[in-house]
Each structure stands twice: as C-alpha cells, then as structure tokens.
C-alpha cells in the first residue's frame, strides 16, 4: 500500500468520524425545537451534546486540513467548485456554533427562540449540503482539463443529489433521536424513541430509493475501484435492524446500528470512488485521482508520521470525554451553562 492510498483511507476515516459524531448532534439540533416542549427540556436536549459537539466539528476541520495537505488539488477543486454550497455550510456552522454559546447567556424568551431557530436551521442545512455534495462526487461534475469546476451551483442540484441530501438529513435525525434516547429519561426519552420509530421507516425507504437511483445516475454498480463486496449490504441490514432494536428497547444497539449504517455507507462511497476523488463528467481522463491531486511523497511521509502519532492520542481523549459524561442528563439536574 502506498502513501496516497493510506491518505485516501485516512480522509475517509475523518469523514466517517465527522458523519458519525456530528451526525447525531446535527440530528439533535434539528429535533430540539420539536422535542423540547419548554425551555428546561430544550436545555436538557442541548446538554446531551453540550460537551461534545465542538469536538465533533473538529473532525470536519481536520478532514479539510488533511485534504489540503495530502491532496491540494482535491481541496482546491472541491472548495472553489462547490463555492456557494460551502458558503451556505459556513453560514450554518457559524450560526449554530454561536447559538449554542449565546442562547443561554440571556434569559429572554424571544432571544432564546431566535437562537433555537438558528440551531435548527444550522443543523438542517449541513447534512442536506453534505448529502448533495457526496451524491455529486459519485455522479460526476463538470471538471475541465485544468482541474477546475466549470459548472454552476444550480448544476449541483438534481433529483439524485437532492434525494441524497434528504436521506442524509433523515439518517442524522434518526441517529440523533437514538443518541437522545440514550442520554435522557422519562417522557423525553419516550418521545425520542417514537421519533426514532417514525423516522426510521422513512430513512430506510429513502436510502433504498437513493441506492436505486445510484444504479441509473452513477457508475457505482458497473465500475468498482475496489469491489465493496458485502459492505453496502451490511449497511442496509444495519439500518433495517434499527426498528427492531428500538422496539426491543435496546437503545444502545439501535444507536450502534445507525452509526454502523453511516460508517459503512461512507466506506462504500469511498470504495466506489477509488482511486478517483472527484469524477469529471466531461472527460474521464480529467477526473482527479489520489495520484494527480496529491502532494509529493516527502510531504505525505511527514504527514503520515504526524497523523499516526497524533490520531491515537486524539481518539483516546475523545473517547475518555464520552466516558466522563456517560451519565444521562436529568431534567432535575443542575443544568450547566
């Protein structure tokens, strides 16, 4: 295995980490205004992700940094090409990040309602945009011989990508509702579970629909960078089992299964893309690959040493945080913030 492949895998891992972790806090952000009937409940819902969401978001920042360092052309083409989508993403993330901090700093219903709406919008927009972006990565976008994206923002919106975006939203809402049922109790927990049941069915339908569309819209079924083998089927089975686990009150397992669905779906996307990182719809030879988009070997070597040293440490203390805050958040808690 060469370093280009290793970095392709590392970036896949960073995106899996981002979707898995921020996936549930996006989902909870979307659900918060609906599941929280009053200010205390909304505070409890936010506190379930309070200590984590910021760290979760760093997975995206790191993925961006790693793309820049390992595959500068990928970073340059993607970020300049999907300009308006990224602008919207940044607006969402800025609003959301500040909202968590500012919301409780002033005890006024109007003030809080405004920030709650921003948390909702700021949590809804990113999964939509990421779903659209991933679908377009697979479908192919107009990239010219100089590696520049020559399409428009509206060119990114098509049935396939919009279904992808909607599926991602639902998957994250499901994932979030299950995290919530793990971290709360009583009535709130019941509500989270019933949302999980309701959303779960729709998520399964939409994901299947997305897979069917993939057959027509992409080359994923005919051309395999790496044969994904049973990975997509396992992803489907994991998603299927969620309904059973919620009904059986195995919240932990249900959450693990949505997590598995997210991870395996992302793996499938990356395996099918391989060794391409962005597909050109104009000419297959103009596609960006892990070779023509990459930094030189020396840079990759340095970065590999850095990553292999730091990533285990980061993982260790992040896992430790989840352990420290493993307790459920009670309605009657002293609510920090």
């Amino acid at each position, binding site marked *: 295995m060469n370093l280009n492949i290793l970095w392709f895998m590392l970036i896949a891992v960073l995106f899996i980490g981002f979707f898995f972790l921020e996936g549930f806090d996006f989902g909870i952000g979307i659900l918060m205004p609906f599941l929280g009937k009053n*200010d205390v409940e909304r*505070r409890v819902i936010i506190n379930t992700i*309070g*200590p*984590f969401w*910021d*760290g979760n978001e*760093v997975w995206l*920042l*790191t993925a*961006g*940094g790693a793309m*820049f*360092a390992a*595959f*500068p*052309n990928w*970073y*340059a*083409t993607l*970020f*300049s090409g999907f*300009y*308006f989508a*990224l602008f919207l993403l*940044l607006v969402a*993330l*800025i*609003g959301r990040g*500040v909202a*968590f*901090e*500012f919301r*409780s*700093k*002033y005890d006024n219903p109007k003030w809080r309602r405004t920030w709650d709406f921003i948390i909702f919008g700021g949590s809804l927009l990113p999964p939509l945009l990421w779903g659209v972006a991933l679908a377009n990565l697979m479908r192919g976008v107009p990239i010219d011989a100089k*590696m*520049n994206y*020559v399409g428009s923002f509206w060119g990114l919106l098509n049935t396939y990508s919009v279904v992808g975006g909607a599926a991602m939203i639902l998957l994250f809402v499901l994932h979030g509702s299950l995290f919530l049922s793990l971290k709360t109790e009583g009535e709130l927990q019941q509500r989270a579970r019933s949302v999980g049941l309701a959303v779960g069915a729709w998520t399964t339908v939409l994901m299947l629909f997305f897979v069917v569309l993939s057959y027509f819209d992409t080359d994923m079924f005919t051309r395999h960078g790496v044969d994904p083998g049973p990975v997509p089927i396992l992803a489907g089975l994991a998603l299927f089992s969620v309904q059973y686990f919620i009904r059986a009150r195995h919240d932990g397992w249900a959450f693990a299964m949505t997590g598995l669905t997210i991870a395996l779906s992302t793996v499938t996307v990356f395996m099918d893309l391989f060794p391409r990182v962005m597909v050109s719809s104009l000419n297959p030879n103009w596609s960006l690959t892990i070779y023509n988009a990459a*930094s*030189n070997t*020396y*840079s990759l070597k*340095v*970065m590999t040493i*850095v*990553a292999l040293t*730091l*990533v285990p440490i*980061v993982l260790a*203390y*992040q896992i430790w*945080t989840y352990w*420290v*805050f493993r307790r459920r958040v009670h309605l*009657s*808690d*002293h609510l*920090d*913030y």
Partner: protein
Amino acid sequence: MSNLVLARWQFGITTIYHFFFVPLSIGLVFMIAFMETMYVSRHDDTYKQMAKFWGKLFLINFSVGVVTGILQEFQFGMNWSDYSRFVGDVFGAPLAVEALASFFLESTFLGMWIFGWDRLSKRVHLTAIWLVAIGTTISAFWILTANSFMQEPVGYVVKNGHAEMSSFGALILNKQLWLEFPHVWLGAMATGAFFVLGISAWQLLRKQMPEAFKRSFQIAAVVALVSSILVGLVGHAQAQHLVHSQPMKMAASEALWNTSADVAPWTLVAGINPQTHTNSMQVQIPGMLSILSYNKLHGSVEGINQLQAQYVQKYGPGNYIPPVRTTFWSFRIMVFAGGLMILLGIWSVVAVVRNKLTTRKALLRIAVPAIALPYLANTMGWVMTEIGRQPWTVFGLLKTANSVSPTVSAGMVLTSLIGFTLIYGILAVLDVMLIVRYVKEGIDTTSAPTVSHSQPTIAPL
C-alpha cells in the same frame, strides 16, 4: 470589481475580524488557568469565582473565534484555489497539524471544563483548562508556521509547476517563525492582560467585589507590563530581520523612497505621495533608523526605488511596491499603541506595588478605554505584515494576482463577502453586548450547586 479585489477584501476582513477574538482567547485562558491553579493550591474560593467570571467572558469570545476560524481555513480553497494548488504541499501541512494537534485538544477539554465543574476532580478540571491554554498556543504556533512560509519561504523546491516541500524541519526552524510566533503570542498575552485590567478597573471604580477585582488587576498588571515590554523587544528584532528578509516591506514601512545615508534618520511622520515617490513635511530623528535596523549609529537602509529596480531585474517587469501609506502608518500606529501599553503597564504595577490601587482613580479610568490599545496594535501589525508583502502571497514566489480562484465569479465572491460581513457585524454587536451584560452582573458569589426541583434555575455556566 474583479474577483481578485473582492477575494482580497474577504481575506482582509475575515483575518482581521478573526484576529479580534483569537488573541483575547489566548491571553485570557492563561490567566483563568492561573486563577484556577491558585484556587486548587490555596483552597481559596474567591479564585474559583474569579475563574468562573472570566471564564464566562472567555467562552462568549472563544465561540466567535472558533466559528470564524472555520472560514479562515476554508477560504484558501474557496477564493485562492490556485494558491492552494501551488503551495498545498508545503502550506497544507502546518494547517493539518494545527487541526490535529490543537483544535481537538482545545475543543474537547474546553467541553470538559465547562461541563465538568461538578463531575471532575479539582486536579483533572484544572488540567483541562491548562490543556486548553496549551492548545491555543500550539494552534498559534502552527498557523504562524504557515504564515511565516508566506513571508519567508523555506524548505521547498519548485517542481512540476508548484512548490514541493523538501524539508519540514526548515519550515519549523524558519527564522521568521521564531520572531513572528513570540511576537504574536506575547501580543495575545497583552490583549488578555489589558482586557482583565480594564474590566477590573471598571469594577473597582464601582466598588464591586473589590477583593476579587483587586487580585485580577494585580495579575493583569504584571502580565501587561512584562508582555508589553517583551512584545516590543521581539518586534524590534523582527524589524531588524525584515531589513534582510523583506527589504521592500521595511522600506515601505519607513516610506523610504531612496536608499538612506550611512547615518540613517528615522521618519516619525510624513506626508506620503505614492505617485511622485516623494514625502513632504517629514519629521525625522537623525541616526535612529540605523539604530532600529542594525543596533548601531550607522548603516544605510535600501530604498523603494532601488529595490524596485532590483526586483524588475530579478522577477521581470512589474510593480513590486506595496501600498506605502498603509504600510507606513499601520507600523507607526502599532508602535505608538505598544508604547502607551508599556507606560500604562508601568503605572499599573507601581500602583499595585505601592498598594494604592483604590485611590488611583485616574489610572482606573484610563485602564478602561485602554482595552482597545492591544486590539489596535494587533490589527495594525497584521495590516503591515500582509499589505507590506504585496504584490506577493508568497514572497518572491507567487503573486497575489496568480493565487485567486480562476473559475469563481466576482458575483459569487461578492455574495459571500456581503453575507459574511453582515454576520460578522451582527456577531460583533451581540458579543460586545453579552460581555458588557456579564461584566455588569459581576462575580457570582452564590455559585453553590443548586439542587433544583420542578422549576430548576438555569445558572449561567
């Protein structure tokens, strides 16, 4: 306007705005960590209340710094894709290391610190805030490694039409970095110090919790004095390095159109005419520029016209002169603000040592608006550094005009520029509003853990 001009505006606005929040975060977190250390070692609850009070202000400020930082990282790809392609091999690495080594550290342990007051042992909780403080410093180090490469490119070879990294060690050992990093970090310490100094002074004038705010004033006074003096000394060393590494920036910051005499005078103020390459009405101090540049009474400094001619020889036809007025005045405002900070630092420390804090009303009144001084110095410092490097993004290697994204339309950049500027404006107002609110509220002395019932009080922090 072209997408180049708009992209430059966006970079300038984002960077300056982001850097309103970052230095305060870095400076303040160290002081909070110190206060909590005192609390843990001396079991004195006042220090805990202090840490919580300043912690609240820190969090309001930190969150804006973080969210604007995301944009800071992304805009290289969005607006400057040709730059990213050209230097990604070299420039991307420190950015990625920054994310891995510090963003995770800061965000994870800050979460623990906020939510862990009742859940972690005192020592673990204290460790968390120290790790956040260390994280901010690591972050500054790596981002300045990337910036130093733009000022003084090292450790690369140009191959296949772009810069490839050839020595990571050279990037880290870059002379520019070891002047720029301490300068910026000490500037951040000063920012935190003057913030604490000003707010403590205001509270002392109002006679609110004098015991706690006297202590924070004392801590801040010492940090303010030490960091202001050191930041000036390092800045001086940096200017001397500039004479060799970026002589054009040096000449522009002095509005020195022609190479100076051997005993070079320093221009205090001047009316600059960039069209005719002349200055009217200059006030000069004889020999001072030689001292500033070489630490001795003689030694000439190269002028803009001579350097322009050299650069045309070296890099081909073109205009290599940065905006001279901006570079000249930003430098002077920075130095002037720094000078005032040193004076105020001395005054504060003297008042503390003589134990005359509460009777020195004039000092307390001046300390409040003086919060603005480090902000002024920081901003002007970056304006000088970045504008003075023009027309280059990477000095001598890549011009700004060749760095911009070729396929992003001016309309697109304008849309995002307006969008972000509006958001920044709103956030700035809200941020200041919240800080003022919390400052007025003062220190919460009733922070005993609430065991709440049907209607729990939602205690701030």
